[in-house]
């Protein structure tokens, strides 16, 4: 078997050609719809864009200098960061604990519970938003329950309050994404040998100890995936903020997320698509940095470290 270059055998060349030919259609689609689009977006960031008239004027990095003085962007970043900071740990922890409970051998009716708990993930987020808007309405069930328990005196306007609206959206997001992550955890927990738990019980471990010392370390690679998906999803949250606030960004910009801000600039009537493109690229860079940090904190590549 020779390894010198000029003798890449005819057979190898044929195999290469075959491989790339089969890949060619998919590569073409990816190139046109992903790579070209991203390159076009980067191109847009340097220009004043009028899409209808197809004019692109070089604007001396004005889009980038506007980034530095944008107050709404800072507020949007704060809202998005706050949102991700609460939602991601909450949904990871709740999904893990629910998976741990459901994977337990002694629980009866596991299949039934798994079915029920998976249902929220199947609903579309727009329908979910409308349902939650009804539940948290001033005359809706939550307010009535709180008043009958006498925790509050008069109904709280959850939908249009600077403090509460974003928190309602958080609750809704956690409720709808926990089942999906719980299912992923369950899939991995099935492989956990039960003998580990038995050995721990002999040594006197209770349920919490078993969770802390056996389940969580075993699930570390899955946790990396869940946290990363969670971060990417929460940083891109748009539709719930849009429906709750009617596209404005909520009372006093409290539900303004970066995606909503990008939408307002991209589809506004002032030819600001270039600025929207800069914001979109900024968001992509931020998500990349945050996910890298999260991955490192969680022990990096699970296979190497466990």
């Amino acid at each position, binding site marked *: 078997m020779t390894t010198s270059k000029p003798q890449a055998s005819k057979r190898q060349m044929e195999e290469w050609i075959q491989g790339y030919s089969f890949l060619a259609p998919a590569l073409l689609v990816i190139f046109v719809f992903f790579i070209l689009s991203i390159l076009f977006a980067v191109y847009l960031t340097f220009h004043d864009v009028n*899409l209808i008239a197809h004019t692109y004027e070089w604007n001396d990095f004005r889009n980038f200098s506007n980034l530095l003085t944008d107050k709404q962007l800072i507020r949007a970043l704060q809202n998005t960061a706050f949102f991700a900071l609460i939602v991601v740990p909450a949904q990871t922890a709740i999904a893990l604990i629910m998976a741990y409970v459901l994977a337990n051998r002694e629980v009866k009716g596991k299949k039934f519970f798994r079915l029920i708990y998976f249902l929220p993930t199947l609903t579309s987020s727009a329908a979910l938003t409308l349902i939650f808007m009804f539940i948290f309405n001033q*005359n809706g069930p939550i307010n009535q329950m709180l008043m009958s328990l006498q925790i509050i005196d008069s109904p709280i306007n959850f939908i249009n309050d600077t403090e509460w609206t974003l928190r309602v959206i958080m609750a809704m997001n956690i409720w709808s994404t926990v089942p999906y992550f719980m299912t992923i955890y369950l899939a991995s927990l099935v492989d956990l040998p039960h003998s580990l738990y038995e050995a721990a019980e002999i040594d006197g471990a209770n349920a919490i100890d078993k969770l802390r010392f056996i389940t969580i370390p075993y699930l570390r690679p899955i946790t990396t995936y869940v946290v990363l998906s969670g971060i990417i999803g929460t940083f891109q949250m748009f539709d719930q903020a849009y429906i709750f606030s009617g596209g404005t960004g909520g009372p006093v910009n409290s539900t303004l997320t970066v995606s909503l801000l990008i939408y307002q600039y991209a589809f506004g009537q002032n030819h600001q698509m270039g600025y929207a493109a800069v914001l979109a690229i900024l968001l992509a860079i931020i998500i990349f940095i945050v996910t890298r940090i999260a991955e490192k904190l969680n022990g990096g590549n699970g296979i190497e470290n466990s």
Partner: protein
Amino acid sequence: MKTWKKFLTTGVLAAATVSMAACSGGSGSSDSGKETLTIGYWKGSDTENAALDTLIKQFEEDNGVKVESKVYTDITTQLPTDLAGGTAPDVFYIDSSFYPYLQGEGVLNDISDVVSADDYYETLASAFSTDGKLYAAPKDVSTLAIYANTAIFEKAGIALSEVPTSYEEFIKWAPGAQEKIDAAYGKGQVYLMNLNADLARNWPYMVADDQNPIEKDGTVNTSNPTIVKNLMTAIDLFNTGAVATPQQVGAGDEGAGFGTGKFALALTGNWNYQVFKTQYKDLKFEVLPNMTYKGEKVTMQFTVGWGQYKNTKVKDLADKWIQFVGGKEGMSSWTEAVGTLATRPDVAESSKNLAENPALQVHQDAIEYAIAWQNGTNLATLQSSYGNFISEAFKKGAAQADLEAALKQVDEDANSKIKK
């Protein structure tokens, strides 16, 4: 082994290329021989959709052509995309607030010689005209008027004739009337009137005294002292304790609030007239013209027109369509079926709908003095910022300083977005 692999490879490649080429070219061929007109619109209620289908069928028969429909769910984002891609419909709906943007982009045809602007009410034709040229034919209009719940007035012992004719008098009269209503229904159950925290509804206060919240260069200036003073009227209304926003009484909009008996008076549009008659059958109401402000009759009107795409390939058909839906016959058919108001005085005079429902005449007469809902290309940004910050000021007990602070925030937010 090797030969069949070669054939397989070439075969797959060929099939893939052919299918990708076919995907793009497939939709080009339709009814060959018949000309096609593409119309763009958004869907409304079932009655509206049925009325539009009737118009389409009539047009297809009269002209022996085919009409294709392009339905938009969010026209302000989808139509510019179609215009950029060159796939816009030949004729499409234009809301009066969206008109300045489309006209500024230069995508509309001048239709001054297709239909005559004199056939329409002056306020409506000017909403769709620039520099004396007409660019869209108004298809129908809705105006705001005051609906009074006669049952509530009876129970509270207030005569309808007591309702003041000006907002200034109303502010003085309201507390007394609200007391009588509270005596009859209990405190906090029924409010005298609604006031929405929405720019479109607060607009008459903001443009009174010839003010313009958006200046000529496009910057937003709602916090100038005259506008603040005029908008204080809205705050004064809240401070009487007799006025609430629909959200404050738990209703989605003022129509639902009025229908469920939460408001004795409601400033709402004629689109709710049919709703009140059919969905709230026990509701007894009368329609009064909107109260005057600063001595002038004023109200808002919301109109939609049919415009023509500049690069349409079937200009003759597009002209015929606009003449049809903007003409006497087409507009009669549409307004009778849907129950909106006609934009042509000649259609309004012979309208069966108006003859059977005299209460709607109040709405029709209001067109003469109503303000069209449009103001350049920055109105949408202003509306968004306004909705964002104004509810802080629309609470009972708010003072002029609160309103000024809220409006300054509105200005800052809107201008920061406009100036990027």
